[in-house]
């Protein structure tokens, strides 16, 4: 019972992070219909910015965890969204209107490029940082096992919920949100109405990157170790989450993230930790084969 509760907590925390990254996939897919394969690597870049940021602040003698976290979040969001913008501008904008696989191949190239760039400039070894937030709340003890909700887990869930609320408001209530949704429906028509479609797409990429940046900082703080390869695995899982929830659907991305997080937590505890990635990949394949529109997505009618 306590063990299951613990897995539930761990799974939800993990799922919140996947959900944040998945939103980036789903928004980009919604607006330009491509899988941004490099999105996972954007998240990885943010994690490296976080490591540098935390180390730098510690060197300057900033001991307040709250202040450090706030500053690093702000910096990571700023720099990472520039990366999101640059990726779109360099690798995807020149390819508007080309065949479907062309931008996908370009994004694979971008993913390889970013991974190797970080490996070259930041080193191939894992980067550890000292734990920042310790402690937690003991919830339940059964047969000597205590289910524990750590403060960092609470923080991750709180930040995610706050971000989602802000994000929903942005998409539903602001003029940017309206432009964004209009572009999703019909890009040509939106352009005819005098809306700068390129700018809207750029902003979408920056927004997706900003959410991935938050995920990167939170993960760095939570696990304390990162390397240049984390983007690949997290990217695939977040993509699976987006597909599971129904690609193009924002609540779907979050729901998918939570489900993937929970499955991973329970699977590795009750079945086998070695095969936890196989579980994710199998879900991805099964969803794509049997329900490609996902849980909350609209089915696509084949255009003939």
């Amino acid at each position, binding site marked *: 019972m306590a063990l299951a509760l613990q897995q539930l907590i761990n799974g939800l925390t993990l799922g919140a992070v996947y959900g944040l990254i998945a939103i980036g996939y789903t928004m980009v897919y919604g607006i330009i219909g491509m899988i941004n394969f490099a999105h996972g690597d954007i998240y990885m870049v943010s994690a490296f910015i976080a*490591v540098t940021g935390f180390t730098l602040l510690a060197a300057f003698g900033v001991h307040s965890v709250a202040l450090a976290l706030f500053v690093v979040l702000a910096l990571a969001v700023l720099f990472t969204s520039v990366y999101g913008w*640059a990726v779109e501008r360099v690798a995807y904008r020149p390819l508007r209107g080309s065949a479907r696989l062309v931008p996908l*191949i370009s994004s694979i190239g971008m993913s390889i490029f970013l991974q190797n760039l970080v490996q070259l400039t930041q080193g191939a070894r894992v980067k550890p940082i000292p734990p920042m937030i310790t402690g937690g709340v003991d919830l339940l003890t059964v047969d000597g096992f205590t289910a524990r909700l750590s403060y960092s887990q609470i923080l991750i869930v709180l930040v995610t919920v706050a971000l989602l609320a802000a994000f929903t408001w942005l998409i539903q209530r602001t003029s940017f949100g309206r432009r964004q949704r209009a572009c999703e429906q019909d890009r040509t028509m939106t352009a005819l109405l005098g809306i700068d479609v390129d700018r809207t797409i750029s902003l979408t990429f920056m927004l997706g990157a900003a959410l991935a940046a938050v995920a990167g900082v939170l993960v760095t703080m939570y696990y304390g170790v990162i390397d240049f390869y984390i983007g690949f695995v997290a990217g695939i899982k977040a993509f699976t989450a987006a597909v599971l929830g129904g690609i193009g659907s924002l609540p779907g991305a979050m729901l998918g993230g939570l489900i993937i997080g929970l499955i991973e937590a329970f699977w590795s505890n009750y079945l086998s930790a070695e095969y936890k990635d196989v579980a994710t990949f199998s879900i991805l394949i099964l969803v794509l084969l049997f329900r490609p529109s996902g849980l909350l997505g609209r089915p696509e009618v084949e255009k003939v």
Partner: protein
Amino acid sequence: MPATLAERGRDAAAAAAIALLLGIPMIGLTTVDQGGALRVQTRWPWLAVFVIAVFCGRWLLRYGLDRLRTRRTRARSDSTGTAARPAPGGRLPGALAWLTFGISLALPLVFSDNRYVIDTATTVLIYVMLGWGLNVVVGLAGLLDMGHAAFYAVGAYAYALLSTRFGWGFWEALPVAALIAAVFGLAVGWPSLRLRGDYLAIVTLGFGEIIRVVLLNGAEFSGGPNGISQIPRPSFFGLPFAPPGEAPTFAAFFGLEFSPMHRILFLYYVILMLALLTNALVLRLRRLPIGRAWEAMREDEIACRALGMNVTHIKLSAFALGAVLGGVAGVFFAARQGFISPESFTFNESAIILAIVVLGGMGSQFGVVLASLVLVLLPEIGRDFAEYRMLLFGAAMILIMIWRPGGILAQREPTLRLAAKDRRV
């Protein structure tokens, strides 16, 4: 309209500003491990170099594009309605291909005692083989397969298991391993080929990773992370390449003095022969109904269905052939290395093979050879190039998609022409 100096300057300055923002966290700052804790290190001079480079690069790019544009408009206004320019390249790739073929045949004769050269050339040929296999799937059939390393792994493990467990020789195991790879190709392809192109790419990636994880954890049969070692090397039709002993050896049979180079040279010719066979097969298939169907499917799947073609079967055939060729390359790889582990079959390997196909020009056989040469030789030039190899490959993939989405050698030769005089009814 050509930009003024000030416009170009402003544009380049904007690019440099973005470069500064991109560069600060990655180039300007880094963390180094110092006695168990991280310490921040700054590299401002490098950042300055990077920003200046971007400024100049953007300036030159804009300048070049403007020049190109004005020249094009001028050319158009000069020669309206004149004959089309001759296709770039023309017969050149054909001649180059024959030259490469000649060199590859003669290479071992020239470097018969230089193990390094022959080994490197063998590695190039393995990638050529892998590239040609994937080229059927990606280049001809237009199916983006991001898990090609899986079939490479299946071939390698099939041979490793058949030879170490059951004592099969290289030549017996080769067709069986190819068949096993084909079965895997069909098993992966059958459910997933109904998916749209980009989803198919992700699913093949998923299958590739599943196979790798299973190999990594299936300790009983695959040896887990340690892999399988002491895989028997191929023999010369029953004659082993070994120092003189009781059993007849290759050297003894031909009355030669034993040399470890015999096997290296033999392996080189084996992969060369396999690669040439592959090339002949693919070139021939392209001119047959199935090959044309692959290309037609790449162009327009819906039109294919409306013409009565069973798209699933056509896709499966391309996928299975790609798997077979990947599997054959895997068998050879295992036989040559004598040791395999899941490490050799990561997503990175799939990405490299895909990069070879994309860079070489999808559908172009000779392009794959060129790309393989660049890929393998680049790290041999120097250690620095080895580190920058994948960085450059990633960048090149993006640039090629922007510049020539069909690949560098994208010139497509028709599979047949109408001899108009003869056939006019």
